[in-house]
Each structure stands twice: as structure tokens, then as C-alpha cells.
């Protein structure tokens, strides 16, 4: 599950930020390492929402500063969704 999510997060990040796949490692920060500005982050978050069918509230966007954090956040969201549903 986790590795599948990581692959999908990588794919979306490569598309949205125009970076190379090998740069998208778990520890990479979207803004500091992958060149995203604040608008890029909004767009990236929307792309994650589309890819995983989840809703990421504005106040939680700050929790997903790195690739690894995005994967953990999405895992948690998907698990919550399954519990609820």
C-alpha cells in the first residue's frame, strides 16, 4: 500500500513540478528542494486530491511539506476513509 502511494505521489509531483523522478525522494521538501512556490503547492495539493479522491483542508496543507509527509498524510486519510465508509 505505502509503496504504491509513494509511486503515485512521485508521479503527480513529477508532472506538477516538472522535476526529475530521481529528485522526488521521501526526504525532499516540495518548496526547498523541488522548487515549488506557494502557488505550486496549492496546485500540487489539488492534484493529490484528484489522484487519491481525498479532501485536504487548507489548515492541513502545512502538514505535507515533504514527499514522505505527503505519503504518510495520504495513507492516514485513506485509512480514515475506509473506517468511515
Amino acid at each position, binding site marked *: 500500500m505505502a509503496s504504491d502511494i509513494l509511486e503515485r505521489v512521485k508521479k503527480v509531483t513529477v*508532472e*506538477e*513540478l*516538472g*522535476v526529475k523522478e530521481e529528485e522526488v525522494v521521501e526526504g525532499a521538501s516540495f518548496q526547498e528542494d523541488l522548487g515549488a512556490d506557494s*502557488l505550486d503547492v*496549492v*496546485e500540487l495539493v*489539488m492534484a493529490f486530491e484528484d489522484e487519491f479522491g481525498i479532501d485536504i483542508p487548507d489548515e492541513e496543507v502545512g502538514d505535507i511539506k515533504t514527499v514522505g509527509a505527503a505519503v504518510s498524510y495520504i495513507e492516514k486519510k485513506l485509512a480514515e476513509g475506509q473506517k468511515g465508509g
Partner: protein
Amino acid sequence: MPERPAPSGRVVVTGIGAVTPLGTGVDKFWPRMLAGENAVDRISHIDPAPYTTQIAAEVRDFNAEDWLDRKEARRIDKFIAFAVAGATMALQDAGWKPEGEEAEEVGVLIGSGIGGLTFLGEQHRKMIEQGPDRVSPFLVPYMIPDMASGYTSIVHKLKGPNNCVVTACATGANAIGDAYHVVKRGDAIAMLAGGSETPINEISIAAFSAARAMTGRNDDPTHASRPFDADRDGFVIAEGCGVLLLEDYEHAKARGAKMYGEVIGYGMSGDAFHITQPDAEGDGAYRAMRMALRNACLKPEDIDYINAHGTSTQYNDRLETLAIRRALGDAAYKLKVSSTKSMIGHTLGAAGAIEAVICLLTMRDGKIPPTINYEKPDPDCDLDYVPNKAQDMEVNVTLSNSFGFGGHNVSLAFRKM
């Protein structure tokens, strides 16, 4: 404050760039234009089936990734990408990369008649179908017409005057004229100036169809744009961009720059008549030309060539002809007039800038591009429109006319160096 020589008060063109339906880059489009080629075809950017108008002149060899980094190229509205491409070509052509304090003396004034409607249309659809939270954070920056200038300044690190003109189909000409004034009075050493337009999207085609200004010749695209011909029935919409590097004459001379020509006149006027129709006597167009002649200190017989607005609408071509006759008297019958919109359609806010590029090339090469599809003379249009074939002729002084919805009229005058 750094020392800088006083402005010479003379403004020359030292670089040109263009994105047109006959090709991206001057070397691509100019030979095809002199050969009288036609770029009008059935629309491919969108499915044209539901629209009243189904033909246009599209740019089909443009790749945004050639001019921008991949991330930006993928999502940016094309009118901005066109502007960056045109500006980059103009700077490369001028062989000059302003840096450091010099970059603070170089500005950008690239207008757009309508801005990023393609992106706006996509995002509006998203909002309706998926909700307001799905609207891109890039909608505002990619939609606003001033981003052509803003973005270009960021790409080339140009920190001088940065501005935007929005005067419909007079945009490109107004931008060049206004930038000419900026350089002439010494507020910048040089300005990148022009216009960019990408109106071949769903909402624009629907809107211009509704305005009933476009040709109905869907079945015969190659003969649809026929300026000054008696059977003309409306313009062909098109996309493109033109950019000039306008530079202070002494600065250009000091760095040994090649000079295409000098900007010598800039006339403008308002019709104060109707939102889309030209003045019934062509009075605004006449007064724009009169002003250009006056501030260029030109006599009518000095003018060799006019690149007409020549949209291929009944109104424009008749009234522009009338205005030229009134402004120039008998001299109107001795000079050449052509409408290059016969080949590349009407690029709206880019038209005046692309046509300025054409005027400069006409002087450089001594070749006048034709008005193609000229078959049936109209008694109201009785000038020498360079029918169907380019002509060789020494060209020293040119006028370029541009008129826009809202009643904006512009005439630019250029002189060969």
C-alpha cells in the same frame, strides 16, 4: 546614480520576433508570406463543429517548451508563452542581453487584447463541474493581460518600465507607440514592445461568432480572408505575437547594433462612434494617420507602403480606404497598400505588432507582401493593394494602421535607416 548619456530622442528597432500562423520566427514566416501562402484552415485547437465559425489561422509549429521550463510550459496560458518567445527572439536578433544596472533601463510593454481566455475557460468549466475549490491558483496570473509583460520581464530580468496596453485590435500598435514614447523621452534605453493573442478557444470563438464580424466561408478557408475584394464577408480569426526591441539610437549605435528602421511617427485617435463599428466616414482612422504624418514631419508623397488594417470586413476595408484617401490625397494612388491578414488572418491584439515587423522587413528587403485572394475589385476600394503577388520596390517610409473595437485608431510610421 550611475552616469547615463542623455537620450538622443531617436528610437530605432534593433530586434524583431514573431509567432505567426505561417511559422514561428521571422525566418520561417517571411519567405512564406512573400510567396503569398495562406495559413487559414479548419480549426484544430478545439472541435469546431458546434460553432458558427469553424475556420481560423492557427500557429501549428509552436512548442512552449522551446521557450520556457517544462513545468511552466505545460500549464501556462499560451498568450504568455507566445510573448516570451517573441521577446526572446527579438533580444537574440538584437544580439544584446541587458544585465546589471543596464537591465534597470530596459522595460517591457507587450499587450494583449483579451489575455488568457483559454485558461479562464478551462477553469470556469472546472468550477462549474467540480466546484469552486478546484479552481487553479494560477488562474489570476495566467488570465490577466499584463502578464505578457510581467512574465517576460521575469524571464529576461528586465527591470525598467513594465506596462500593458489593452485596446482590442489596436493593442500591438499602441504598445509599440507607447513604448516608443518611453524610450524617446529617456525613461528607458530600450523597450520590448508588441502584442500577443491566442483567441482560438471555445469562449472566444463563440463570442466572436455571436458578434457577427467573422467570415462565413467555412467551406473555403483558403479564400476566406479577402481584404478589399468585393466579395469579402468578415475577418478570419488568428493567433500570434509580434515583438520589437525599440532602442535609443545613440545606444544602438554605440554597441554597433543593426537597425531595421526608425520609429518616426505615432498617431492615435478615438472614433467616439460605436462599440464595434468604425466611424461611418472613417474619420478616426483618418485622424490617426494625420497625427502620425504630423509628428513624423512627413508629406503624403513620402510614404511608399501602408500595411493596412485590412480585416476583410465590408466596413473596415471601405472606410480605411476612404481614410487613406482623405489623409494622403492624390498620393494615396501612388503608394502600395496591402493587407497581410489575407494570409495570416486577424491576430487581434497581436496584429499591429506583427504588421510592424512586416513593415520593417519590407524596408529591409525591398519586397512588399501581397494581398492574396484579391479577385473582384470593389469600386469603393480603389487603391493599389498589391494583388496576389509580392512586389519588389525600394521602400523607405511605411505606415502601419490598426483599429480596435471601442473605436481605438493607431497609425505608426517607420523610416529605413
